[in-house]
């Protein structure tokens, strides 16, 4: 008798299922809507930036924006809009950051992947990655209240706000990006290649620098590029510790304003909507967006295109 009861159950379930079937058809559509949010976000960024950037270039010529060297957005009589001082400060701080992050990050990666035992690596790698989890505002505080006064002991000419100290702190923030991604690339080099070199009498150092690094070079370069992109987009450290002087100079002891810090200054300042200073915000953001996007795409291209397959 239980047999017929089961059939009854099955029929009933099937009837329910017909309702369920409609629901089932709806599901992919609903999920697709959720997935399209990310595309909409990109579109939103592009449209808002483009729209206001076009408005900006109706008031300011390309020549002025890219070729002149004066940035005085809020000057009441003769405002000037040139991105060069901001671009210069961004590139300078990024350069300082990479000057710290590349040697330290790369040698950390070599140590973790070539010298460290499994046990040491399993403890050390997450610890190094903690550096990447510290909010950037905390690094900003550190650069402003500790690193700058510390550096002033050695470089008396250092301004209270300068590009050197945030550059160094940004480098420290980027160490885990370089170290972790490079280590991943080096670890994926097969052991047989290492063993071949060692059998020929190479020391570990020679194996690392003549065999492993050349084999993992695409991943390593990708990690540098991602680090650069991170440094270009970094906001709070430079906003706090490098001040708001729009200087076009290579003197790292001076206060300079990066593109990101400029955006912060204008959004939190008095530039009302509709003024040229307000639109300049979007032109600068557009430059920033294009730079970082190009870097990220290049990094992905490097890892995909030049990945050695063993």
């Amino acid at each position, binding site marked *: 008798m239980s047999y017929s009861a089961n059939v009854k159950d099955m029929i009933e379930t099937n009837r329910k299922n017909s309702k369920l079937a409609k629901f089932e058809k709806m599901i992919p559509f609903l999920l697709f809507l959720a997935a399209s949010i990310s595309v909409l976000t990109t579109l939103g960024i592009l449209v808002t930036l483009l729209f206001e950037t076009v408005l900006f270039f109706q008031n300011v010529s390309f020549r002025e924006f890219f070729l002149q060297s004066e940035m005085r957005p809020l000057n009441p009589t003769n405002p000037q809009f040139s991105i060069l001082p901001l671009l210069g400060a961004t590139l300078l701080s990024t350069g300082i950051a990479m000057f710290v992050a590349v040697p330290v990050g790369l040698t950390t990666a070599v140590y973790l992947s070539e010298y460290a035992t499994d046990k040491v690596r399993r403890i050390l790698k997450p610890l190094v990655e903690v550096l990447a989890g510290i909010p950037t505002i905390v690094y900003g505080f550190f650069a402003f209240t500790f690193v700058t006064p510390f550096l002033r002991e050695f470089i008396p000419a250092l301004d209270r706000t300068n590009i050197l100290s945030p550059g160094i702190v940004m480098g420290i923030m980027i160490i885990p990006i370089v170290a972790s991604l490079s280590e991943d690339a080096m670890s994926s080099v097969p052991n047989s290649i290492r063993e071949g070199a060692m059998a020929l009498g190479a020391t570990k150092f020679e194996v690392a620098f003549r065999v492993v690094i050349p084999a993992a070079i695409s991943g390593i370069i990708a990690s540098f590029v991602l680090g650069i992109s991170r440094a270009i987009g970094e906001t709070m450290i430079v906003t706090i510790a490098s001040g708001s002087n729009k200087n076009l100079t290579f003197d790292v002891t001076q206060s300079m304003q990066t593109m990101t810090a400029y955006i912060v200054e204008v959004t939190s300042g008095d530039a009302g909507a509709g003024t040229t200073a307000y639109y300049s915000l979007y032109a600068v953001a557009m430059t920033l*967006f294009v730079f970082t996007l190009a870097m990220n795409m290049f990094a992905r291209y490097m890892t995909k295109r030049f990945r050695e397959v063993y």
Partner: protein
Amino acid sequence: MQYMDLDAVQSRMTKRIFFNRLSKMLFLASAFFGLIVLAVLLYDVVSDSIGWLSIDFLTSLLSTNPDIAGIRGAILGTVWLMVIVGPVTMILGVCTAIYLEEYARPSKFTTFIQTNISNLAGVPSIVFGLLGLTVFVRLFGLGSIVLAGGLTMSLLVLPIVVVASQESIRAVPAHLREASFGMGATKWQTIKNVVLPVALPGIFTGMILAISRAIGETAPLVAIGIPALIIPAPSGIFDRFTALPMQIYYWTIDSVMVQEYAYLAAATIVVLLLILFTLNSIAILIRNKFDRRY
């Protein structure tokens, strides 16, 4: 007959071995460099906060007088912000991941969505802030309220949740799915009853990472225009607010005028770091506890 000069080989080898030993020590030192800086940073912050971090500091409201100023408003602001970020990123992120992993057919458009998500993860947070300012604050006319900040933050951390959820859905073994289909379950039933429960720990870990990123992120909030004014503690998502990182920012830059503000900023940083530390410990616990192999 001697083919090589043994002395020359020997001296060259000694050099190479010495160099190898030296570089090993140098590289170890370099691996510890980051950790030493981290230790200095923590010491600096904690030593600055001593004497300022107290229960009163956590429970009293903002003030221009550093002796009585507290971060009750900032804590509540951060909590309300997460009330938005949590559900929004959870729903959007998991749904996007399910779509990409389970439903989307391999096509140009699917690849486009996928590329788009990894590109979004690399967009500087200040640009997201500008998007929030233009769309949520100005276009939708929300103003600088919790909802606008929360939505901006959600878009910023969404890629983290999507990628983590995708990885953890992909890791669900095929035989579990096949068993469910074999029992007559439909695709959605399989996803809901088999795939998601197995993938849940991974999704939660991704969520916690996203939330901790959102808690510490400052630039988008600055961009959407959280003012440096004394704002009453928010009591809902439509209130104006300040948040922990914003408070750190304003106290840090104002410390030029009032030295004590630097200590208040340090105390707030300790609170922020403790919150992040707790969240990440929970994430590690979840990962260790539920990391089952099938």
